[in-house]
């Protein structure tokens, strides 16, 4: 749930942890994300096709990963946050039945005029190991 008010940049410290985002991954969640992101690759909705590709089940698409990462950032940072950069690398796949947990930490704070930049290191792990690792930069207005 997005915080009603945004994080106060000047109150942040390097090492601050972001609140975890925990997802129960179902086939419905995977298919809903694939279709909403307009990714019709059959491996994300057709188990038989996924099996032919050597996967045991359908798996989450990368557009869903970037979507959940940005949600993870703004659930914490609030409606005034701008996501300026997000770079992720995929590890193990996410299948129905997994629990996917996003964690993150503030790694750098810099100021540019009236904007506060926050660099964040983030990862998402599931039952098989690390699914996503990455970095992000958001900016927040600085109250005068």
């Amino acid at each position: 749930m997005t915080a009603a008010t945004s994080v106060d940049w000047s109150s942040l410290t390097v090492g601050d942890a972001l609140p975890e985002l925990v997802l129960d991954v179902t086939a419905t969640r995977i298919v809903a994300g694939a279709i909403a992101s307009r990714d019709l690759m059959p491996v994300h909705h057709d188990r038989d096709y996924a099996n032919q590709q050597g996967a045991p089940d359908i798996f989450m698409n990368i557009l869903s990963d970037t979507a959940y990462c940005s949600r993870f950032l703004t659930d914490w940072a609030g409606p005034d946050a701008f996501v300026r950069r997000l770079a992720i690398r995929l590890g193990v796949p996410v299948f129905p039945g997994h629990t996917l947990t996003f964690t993150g930490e503030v790694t750098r704070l810099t100021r540019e005029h009236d904007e506060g930049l926050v660099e964040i290191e983030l990862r998402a792990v599931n039952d098989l190991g690390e699914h996503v690792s990455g970095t992000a930069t958001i900016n927040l207005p600085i109250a005068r």
Partner: protein
Amino acid sequence: MTETTLDEQLQALVGRPIGEGGPAHAPDPVNQPMIRHWAAAFEDANPVYTDPVAAAASRHSGIVAPPMMLQTWIMATPKITGIAERGGSPVEGGRVKVLALLSDAGFVGTLASNSEFEIVRYLRLGDEVSAETVLESVSPEKQTRLGPGHFVTWVTTYTDACGEVLGRQRFRILKFRPVAGPS
């Protein structure tokens, strides 16, 4: 006549647009129904995406599209019939040459591995998005847990109706020969 190797054919494509026919244009302008559908699918309750009053009161001064939807706007309208036979390609014809070369060489599997977004500005309702994608690199054949494959990296530049840059995305996929693949 000299026979060119697969690697030579792949490297010849580097630095060039991946498709033919110029930039891709979003089938529809940025709109509230697609944003609402996206926000619901990812259970993203950020009010700046769907609540006009809260969005107006925010730093964004109005509804904005989720930044990670940038790639979604330019996804082609899919033709469902035959999509599996086309290896998941949403459209007929206009095959991306680098992917066609690899598929024809047996690297029929596709798996995304990296996505890096730089967002220049958030999109607003009515924005018309175009995108041009250039092939940045193709790796030599590598052994992966899925089988032998090549990593393919391209960079997409997204622009608005005035040609102003909205954002950039570096995207990497693995084209692999499935170990337990279709025989």
